[in-house]
Each structure stands twice: as structure tokens, then as C-alpha cells.
């Protein structure tokens, strides 16, 4: 009797809750529908009476700052182009590509898709639209470094427009240069200049101060060094340097280490330059380290010293700088029905000064030189240094199609290991390099 009552009560109440929420749900979907962009679009469209009404969807991942800025840019575009509405489909990074894969499989992918380094994978699956017919027409890429376009090119078809770039760099502590009375280098400096400068700084500032970190373990610096002597780290499945190049490389650093110009091995391991909170640049004890250019804001935030960015030194064959690389692309779904409008929006994202001002560097440094220049005038001092540096690299870097070492992480580890063997005096340069060369070839064989 008693239990029966309870049960009928629970049943009753659960049905009531269900019914109530069912009603709620209907209300939700009704109000949702009336407030949805399509309704808004029809009212604004009827106001300006354009020929047709186009609805686009754009997917991107990010954190709330990027969501906010991208939505603002979309609103601006919609104001300038009555009749086109763009619905943002944004999320965090988790599951972004899983969702995209499902949508592509069902033929329901968004018209505009933010992509990362995996752009070629999707281009290979024929999921992306070839933008070549629009480049030079709707999409203007004149202010882009050619290498940025090549990064999105597969089989002579262009699948994406770069939204943000970054570049490797030497990060220096300008205040230490001042203190030592040494002039800050220009992009024309050579490896001989580098040796002189770091030696001077270490000598002038005394014990515990160094001109530079030991960069023999840094693959970005090595890649640029090889380029500057007319060699290449990697191209088309093979290395393009020999044992002598590596011996020269490690000897350069070994000499500097012995003369006290660069950080000794123990200190380097205890205070790795990659950790912002441990870097001796921030503490004003080392004047130069290697970094990704965009890291400067993180480093600068932790110190009163003035930091700057400079290109890697020149060698016998000139500059070995790697051109700025794309962080992210905007791509179009191959099944889009409105490719002209999609192209228009892509051009707006990268070339419109107002959009540039809204987006800032939320996806990396803007790829267009003009936008960078206009932003540099109004931005913070640190961002200005960054923008100017990217422009500088775009100018001095030779226009080569840089290819990254295929098993990059393992290569970096191998280089680090070899460097430490030498700096801790476990092996001679000659034997360490011999082993390095054979290990590199093993890595290449593995990558095939």
C-alpha cells in the first residue's frame, strides 16, 4: 500500500517534470528559431534589398578571446556586405577535427574551416576547395611572402589562406648590450660578428654573465647555420650536409664555451632557455637565446629589461633564415555552394585594415605586410618589435621552399644529446659527430 503510493507519486511527478520540460523545450526551440541568424538576415536583407541572400557557416577552434574577436570581425563583414550572413561554429580544440571528419563524411561541413598544419591531409582527401581561381581576383595575396602561399599549395592547387605566421628568432636582452657598451647587431651580422659580440659582453660584464646560450643543441639555429653556408638540413628524403659541417658547427660552440662566452653545460641544463620562468635572459645574465618570435611577449612580461629580436647571423652564403611559417589557415569546404562569397570573406580576414585591427594577433602575427605596418603604429611596444621582426624576416629570408625534418621531435632529441655529450666532455667532437651522422641516417630510414 505504502510503496504503491510512493511509486505512483514518483511516476506522476516524473511525468509532470517531463511534460513541463517538454513544454520548456518547445519554448526554447521556438525562441531560438525566431532569434536565429536567418530571421535576422531576412530583416536586414529586406532593408537593403540585395540580389540574393547567402548564409555561410564558419568553424574554428580557440579560446574565448579568439571567439570574441572573430565574432566581431564577422559582424563587421556582415555590415559591409548586406545579404551575407556568417554563422560561427566555434569550440575548443578537443574534438574539433572529429566533428569536422563526421561532417565531411556526411557532406555537411561548414563553408569556411580553420585549419592547422594538417591542411595537406584534408587537401589530399578532396575535402577542400581549390582557391587558385580566386587568387588575384577576389583574394589578394600580394602582401604575402611567397612561401606562405606554397605552404597551402598541393599539386599546383591552393587550398588555404594563412591567417597567422610565426618565425624562429634570436631573442636578445638589449639592456645587457647597453650595459656592456656593445652595439645591438643588425640583420647583416655574420658568425664572426656573433663570436666577437658574445665574447665582448661576457668579458665586460664579468663572472656569471654570458654573451649567449649554447645554441649547438638548437635545431632552428642549426637549420639557419646550414642555410647560411649553402647547405640544407633536409630536402626530399635526404640530408644535405656532411660530417665536416657538423664538426664546424660544434667546434664553433665548443670554442665559445671554452673562452667563457657562452653558458657552460651545467648552467644550461639547470636553466633551460625554453622555460620562460628559468631563462637567464629574463634574469639579465645571458644576452642571447633562440626562441619562437611570438614568445617575446611572454619573456618581456617577466622582466624590466628591454628585449628584442634579431635574425640569425649570416654565413659565407648569406642568410640562412627560414621564411615565416603559417600557424593557421582559413580553408573552404569543397562542397560549398557559395565559393565567391567564401573567397570574399577570406580576403576580408587577411587584408581588411579594420578586420586586422579587430583580430590583432589572435591567430599569430598577421601575414600581410600592410596590415602589420598599420597595426605596428597603434600596438604595444612588444608587439611592434614582433611585427617588425616578421617583416624583416620576410625580406631577408631567401625564397626557398623550406622542408622540415620529418621526425622532427626525434631529431631535436638527437641533436640535444650530441651537444651535451660534447659540452660535458663525454665524447670528442669527432666521435660524437660520427655517431650523430649515423643516427640521423637511421632516423631518415625510419621516416621513409
Amino acid at each position, binding site marked *: 500500500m505504502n510503496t504503491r503510493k510512493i511509486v505512483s507519486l514518483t511516476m506522476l511527478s516524473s511525468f509532470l517534470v517531463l511534460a513541463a*520540460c517538454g513544454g520548456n523545450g518547445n519554448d526554447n526551440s521556438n525562441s531560438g528559431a525566431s532569434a536565429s541568424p536567418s530571421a535576422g538576415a531576412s530583416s536586414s536583407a529586406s532593408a537593403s534589398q540585395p540580389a540574393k541572400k547567402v548564409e555561410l557557416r564558419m568553424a574554428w*577552434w580557440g579560446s574565448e578571446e579568439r571567439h570574441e574577436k572573430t565574432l566581431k570581425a564577422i559582424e563587421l563583414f556582415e555590415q559591409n556586405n548586406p545579404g551575407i550572413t556568417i554563422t560561427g561554429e566555434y569550440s575548443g580544440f578537443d574534438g574539433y577535427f*572529429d566533428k569536422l571528419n563526421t561532417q565531411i563524411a*556526411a557532406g555537411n561541413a561548414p563553408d569556411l574551416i580553420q585549419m592547422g598544419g594538417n591542411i595537406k591531409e584534408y587537401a589530399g582527401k578532396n575535402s577542400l576547395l581549390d582557391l587558385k581561381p580566386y587568387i588575384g581576383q577576389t583574394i589578394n595575396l600580394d602582401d604575402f611572402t611567397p612561401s606562405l602561399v606554397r605552404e597551402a599549395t598541393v599539386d599546383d592547387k591552393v587550398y588555404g589562406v594563412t591567417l597567422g605566421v610565426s618565425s624562429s628568432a634570436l631573442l636578445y636582452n638589449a639592456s645587457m648590450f647597453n650595459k656592456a657598451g656593445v652595439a645591438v647587431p643588425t640583420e647583416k651580422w655574420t658568425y664572426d660578428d656573433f663570436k666577437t659580440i658574445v665574447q665582448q659582453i661576457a668579458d665586460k660584464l664579468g663572472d656569471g654573465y654570458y654573451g649567449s646560450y649554447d645554441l649547438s643543441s638548437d635545431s632552428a639555429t642549426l637549420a639557419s647555420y646550414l642555410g647560411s653556408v649553402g647547405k640544407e638540413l633536409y630536402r626530399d628524403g635526404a640530408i644535405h650536409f656532411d660530417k665536416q659541417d657538423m664538426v664546424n658547427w660544434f667546434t664553433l660552440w665548443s670554442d665559445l664555451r671554452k673562452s667563457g662566452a657562452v653558458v657552460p653545460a651545467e648552467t644550461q641544463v639547470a636553466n633551460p632557455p625554453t622555460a620562460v620562468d628559468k631563462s637567464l635572459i629574463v634574469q639579465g645574465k645571458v644576452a642571447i637565446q633562440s626562441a619562437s618570435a611570438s614568445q617575446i611577449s611572454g619573456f618581456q612580461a617577466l622582466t624590466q629589461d628591454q628585449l628584442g629580436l634579431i635574425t640569425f647571423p649570416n654565413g659565407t652564403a648569406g642568410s640562412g633564415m627560414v621564411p615565416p611559417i603559417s600557424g593557421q589557415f582559413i580553408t573552404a569546404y569543397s562542397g560549398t555552394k557559395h565559393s565567391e562569397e567564401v573567397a570574399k570573406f577570406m580576403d576580408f580576414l587577411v587584408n581588411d585594415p579594420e578586420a586586422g585591427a579587430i583580430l590583432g594577433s589572435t591567430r599569430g602575427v598577421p601575414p600581410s605586410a600592410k596590415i602589420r605596418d598599420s597595426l605596428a603604429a597603434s600596438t604595444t611596444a612588444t608587439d611592434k618589435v614582433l611585427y617588425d621582426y616578421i617583416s624583416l624576416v620576410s625580406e631577408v629570408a631567401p625564397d626557398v621552399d623550406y622542408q622540415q625534418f620529418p621526425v622532427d621531435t626525434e631529431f631535436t632529441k638527437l641533436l640535444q644529446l650530441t651537444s651535451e655529450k660534447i659540452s660535458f666532455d663525454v665524447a670528442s667532437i669527432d666521435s660524437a659527430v660520427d655517431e650523430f651522422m649515423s643516427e640521423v641516417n637511421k632516423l631518415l630510414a625510419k621516416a621513409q
Partner: protein
Amino acid sequence: MPHLSRIKPYALHLLITGVGILMLYPVLWMIASSFKPTTEIFTQSGLWPSRFTLEHYHNGWFGLRNIEFGRFFVNSFFLCVIAVGGTVISSSMAAFAFARIEFPLRRFWFALMLGTFMLPGHVTLIPQYTIFHEMGWVDTFLPLTVPKFFADAFYVFLMVQFIRGIPRELDESAAIDGCGWFKLYIRIILPLALPAIMTTAIFTFMATWDDFFGQLIYLSDIKKFTVPLGLRLFLDSTGNSNWGAVFAMSVLSVIPSFIVYFAGQKYFTEGIATTGLKG
């Protein structure tokens, strides 16, 4: 010796408390981090913040453009209530039929039903998405609610096991008193299967509340986002994430699960014990 026997229960308690705290630590860490200034979250290892701040709660709740986090809670609750109601009603009916009614090929259908839950979700994902897309249901709540009214193999199995344990004599005497199949289901079986039903309800609630992937795939408009999707809006593993807001909103999102679990705990453990299910 008498000392030892007196100490023993205390020692045991101490051990259990210690292990309990160890297991709770990640949760405590999350709660503590939600009150810490951003710069301290990953640099300070201690739990106690040097300065209490509620900014993460404010930023998390109001930080998104055009929408408050509360909307995600409303959407999640809506999905959960429909899912729990739908699953309980449809699964219990199916279970009753399998356990009590003789119909042609009953064993075959039962085996077929069990077969559906051996099928991994990834296999059915894309065909299912395609079907819902063709029906125009993508970016609505329908793909996430309607299937719940068609029973879930796992819960049917769980309830069949439970109903089989209810004496058939009760059915017979009810039939003598004039009960038909439906009355038998409503009046006799349902009330007695309450522990199994509560277990189903709690499992379904938890699964729906924590479901990320299904909701991610089918919902695109931010106004329809649920709590798990809302939390991920702050997270970009390739760039910068607003960890403070993530932790603050995670703390809030755990609360409903806590309440539901503790409120239904009595039935829940009973249901698991009597169905022989090892949770």
C-alpha cells in the same frame, strides 16, 4: 594485546581516510585552483591560495559573447530530464516484455538486442549522423533525445535480470485479481523494480551530463551548447586556455552529479547488488 585491538579500528579508519583524501586530491586541487589568481594555478603547488578570488567564476559565467554559462546548464538539464524519462520508460517496458511475456522468437530478439550493445559507437557514428542530417535534425536537440525513447540495450539487460528475480507467483495472483499485461507492468513489476529503475536513471543522468562527443557532433549553435561543450570553449590546447574559468565552471558542473548521486545512492547500491552487476 588489548591495546592493539583497541588501536586496530582507529588504524583502519586512518588508512581509509588517508586513501580517501588521496583519491579526492584531484577534485580538491580543481576546487582550490578555481579560487587562485591565474598566475598561481600552475606555479603554486599548495592547495591554499595566497589570495582568494572569485574572478574566475565571474569570467566563466559572463565571459562569453552574447551568452551566459547558465544557458548551458539549462540545456544540459533539459537533455538529462528527457534522456532519463525516455530511457526509464522505454527500457523498462522492453525489459518487462523480455522477462515476462512469451512471444515468438523471444530468445532471438533478445540476442539481437544484446548484439547492439556489443557494437562500438564509432562504427555507427557516421551512418547515424548521415541519417539525422538527411532528416534535418542536425543542430537540434532531436538526435540527442528521440533515440532515448527507443530503449538502451544495456539498461534493458540490467532490468531483465532484476525482473527475473521477482517471484512469478505475484504475477499469477495479480492475474487472478484481473490484471492485464499493462496493469501487471504498472502495478506489480515497476514498483518492485524500483532499485533497477533508479540505477538506470542515475546512470543515464551521469552519462548524459558528462557526454561530450555526441553533443559536440550534433550541436553547433552556441545557444544550444551544453555544459561539457561550454567548458571546452575556454580550452585551446594549441594556444592559450583560460584555465581559471575552466576550473571554476567545472566545479559548478560537478555539483548536479553530486546531488543526483547522493540522493539516489540508496537505490543505486541496492540495484547493483541485486542485479549482480559489478559497477
